[in-house]
């Protein structure tokens, strides 16, 4: 039985950053993501027929859709909807997580991990430093090569 599950993740980043994070989670979703800064997007669950309004990010599910639109093949039955809650400073989402691929079932953890990777890259980019990324299994290392300038010497 397919049902949306509500979740949240404490990530204080804006819409543009969250899109980059989602692109890191699954690059192929790029064709199926809709965004609305005003937060007036609807998500649909084609298994239960439910529709919900008020989201700023929607990742459309694949397979059979009543609206005939295309969607991500690895998201079954129900769209993923996301919106930022400025009061709790969390990104809230609804997703049919039991039907997501195994590596995405812990959706909040995946978002936290990829947001960290994105942030580390952004820091390196901001500072103009070299960076490399190594992914092994469920672990991602981001290595930033930084100069030890005089300001970082002991006793200075």
């Amino acid at each position, binding site marked *: 039985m397919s049902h949306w599950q509500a979740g949240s993740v404490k*990530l*204080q*980043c*804006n*819409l*543009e*950053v969250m899109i980059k994070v989602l692109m890191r989670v699954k690059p192929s979703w790029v064709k199926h993501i809709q965004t609305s800064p005003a937060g007036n997007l609807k998500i649909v669950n084609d298994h239960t027929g439910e529709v919900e309004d008020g989201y700023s990010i929607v990742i459309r599910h694949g397979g059979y859709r009543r609206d005939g639109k295309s969607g991500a093949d690895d998201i079954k039955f129900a769209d993923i909807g996301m919106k*930022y809650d*400025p009061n709790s400073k969390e990104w809230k989402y609804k997703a049919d997580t039991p039907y997501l691929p195994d*590596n995405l079932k*812990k959706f*909040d*953890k*995946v978002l*936290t*991990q*990829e*947001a*960290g*990777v994105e*942030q*580390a*890259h*952004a*820091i390196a*980019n*901001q*500072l103009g*430093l*070299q*960076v*490399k*990324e190594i992914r092994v299994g*469920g*672990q*991602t*290392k*981001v*290595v*930033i*090569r*930084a*100069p*030890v300038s005089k300001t*970082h*010497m*002991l*006793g*200075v």
Partner: protein
Amino acid sequence: MKIYKVADSCPPGMVDIEFTFNDDGSATRKIIAHGPDVGCKKANHSKLMNDVSNTRVNGFNGPLFEVEDEGLTQQGVAELSQPVAPTKAAPFSGVPKIKAPEQKRKLAVPGFDV
């Protein structure tokens, strides 16, 4: 964002700050100083690590994630000169290994309000 290929050997006066992000949402960071670099011996690595970690990045309004410090790792020259990566690096004998106290801290990276 262009991802550079960072050379295996680190030039003098440079260190690598390694962030590790795990699929359970946890994160660690450590500094790797390569070789018998005098500059690295005299460096305040904690300050450098904090200055890099706390850099303000547009679009982020921290704290974003918790990160655990793993301190400083000194990699020896012998390891870097090997044509094939050895399984375990011999510790560099000239510099004592510095171990930072284990602590959890927030990375405060304020951006603009969302």
